[in-house]
């Protein structure tokens, strides 16, 4: 018994030393030219492609992307979450961060205008292309997935579109709320909901485009989805974050955004 105890006493500190060495290694890696990106969920696949192209131009810079709803990131960033740059699905959250002194005032940028689509699985009986917004009222629809309007800009846009096209009151009891617009899409993809209102970018994404059909909601049926971003005041890698911002705003970045269904300011 005493021997066993001795073994434990030796094994624990040894393993602890190993674990500690690796912890230090992790911390170092995080400090070598890594841009930590908080990205709105509608950019899920777009940003992956942007980062890939950006890395080809700047191989020395590492980019770590976390996806989520913009409002969720806003709450986290208000608590100084360790991100360098924030790509929001609206421009309101970045501006609020600037007003609170948490982001650099001169770093605000508008990078795209988002679009909304009504999306159904490929084999769905709903003729969404013909029915448009009325597709939500199809008899086979039991659940409608949207992003949570309380913290996801695309959820707010979806709600506004349903109201302006006059279906909101009829369908509001059928809504299921995803954490982000990406989860709303996943709800439909997994069959939990029959139909969803998601971003055009997700409907065109490689993981989803051959799985569904969609109808684009007229862009004037909801407030213009001006998507903006900002660099946080505690950004460790300011030049690298700037480089990523310039890349997104460059012709190369715009081409990727356009291919994923985004439009631009002034179009």
């Amino acid at each position, binding site marked *: *018994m005493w021997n066993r105890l001795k073994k434990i006493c030796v094994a624990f500190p040894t393993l602890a030393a190993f674990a500690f060495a690796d912890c230090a290694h992790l911390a170092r890696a995080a400090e070598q030219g890594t841009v930590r990106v908080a990205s709105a969920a509608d950019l899920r696949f777009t940003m992956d492609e942007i980062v890939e192209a950006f890395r080809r131009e700047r191989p020395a810079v590492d980019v770590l992307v*976390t996806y989520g709803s913009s409002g969720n990131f806003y709450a986290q960033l208000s*608590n*100084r979450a360790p991100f360098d740059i924030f790509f929001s699905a609206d421009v309101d959250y970045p501006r609020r961060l600037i007003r609170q002194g948490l982001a650099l005032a001169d770093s605000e940028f508008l990078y795209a205008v988002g679009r909304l689509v009504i999306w159904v699985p490929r084999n769905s009986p709903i003729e969404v292309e013909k029915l448009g917004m009325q597709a939500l009222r199809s008899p086979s629809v039991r659940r409608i997935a949207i992003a949570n309007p309380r913290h996801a800009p695309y959820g707010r846009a979806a709600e506004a579109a349903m109201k302006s096209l006059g279906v909101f009151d009829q369908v509001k009891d059928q809504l299921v709320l995803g954490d982000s617009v990406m*989860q709303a899409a996943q709800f439909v993809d997994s069959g939990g909901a029959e139909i969803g209102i998601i971003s055009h970018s997700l409907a065109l994404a490689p993981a989803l485009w051959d799985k569904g059909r969609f109808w684009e909601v007229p862009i004037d049926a909801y407030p213009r989805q001006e998507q903006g971003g900002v660099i946080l005041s505690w950004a460790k890698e300011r030049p690298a974050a700037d480089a990523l911002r310039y890349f997104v705003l460059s012709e190369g970045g715009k081409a990727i955004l356009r291919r994923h269904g985004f439009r631009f300011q002034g179009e």
Partner: protein
Amino acid sequence: MDFEAVWVSMQLAWWTTVTLFVLGLPLAYWLAVTRWRLKFLIEAIVVLPMILPPTVLGFYILIAVGPLSPLGQTYEAMVGRSLAFSFQGLWLASVLYSLPFAVRPFTTAFAGVDRHLVEASWCLGVSRLRTFLRVAFPLSWAGILTGVILSFAHTLGEFGVVLMVGGNIPGVTRTVSISIYDEVQAVNYSKAAMTSLVLLAFSFLALSVTHLVNRKTL
């Protein structure tokens, strides 16, 4: 499979278990031998994380480690980094979250040790620390091992608290369970399935070992 997330979870579980071993053993031993009237209050606090919704614990920790709280401010002044959305913040959260899974089995094990043996050791002039090390600890190793395995496995499967205080940062706070959630959202079901399978296998293994160890001592 998301190896980076597995690695983060392993480190988190490891550090949490080490911390609970170091802090939990004395606390459990004290709970087992003390005759203090108000002991039940401490016991209630220890098991609180077991029934408290993870969101409640997560919410309090988020406030406690945030830049506006005294703890968050002191930490930032000392270390120069924010505690919120960091590995260290997650570590603190996990220690609280897994506390009952370590301290409960420890206490039960210590309570199962014949008190006469402990008192005999004291009467023979052996110090309290030495009595603990040479009498109580060897007699309760199975329960201690159970506590260690359970707190490791429980931390590995932690979700709600990590979601609230972690921030899903790859390589820092994206743990396995968060990675699974993230992959499902990205409709990457095959990757989520692989990681889930690993977690399932590990949990099953951990529980099998705990039950095996406890059977042998009976």
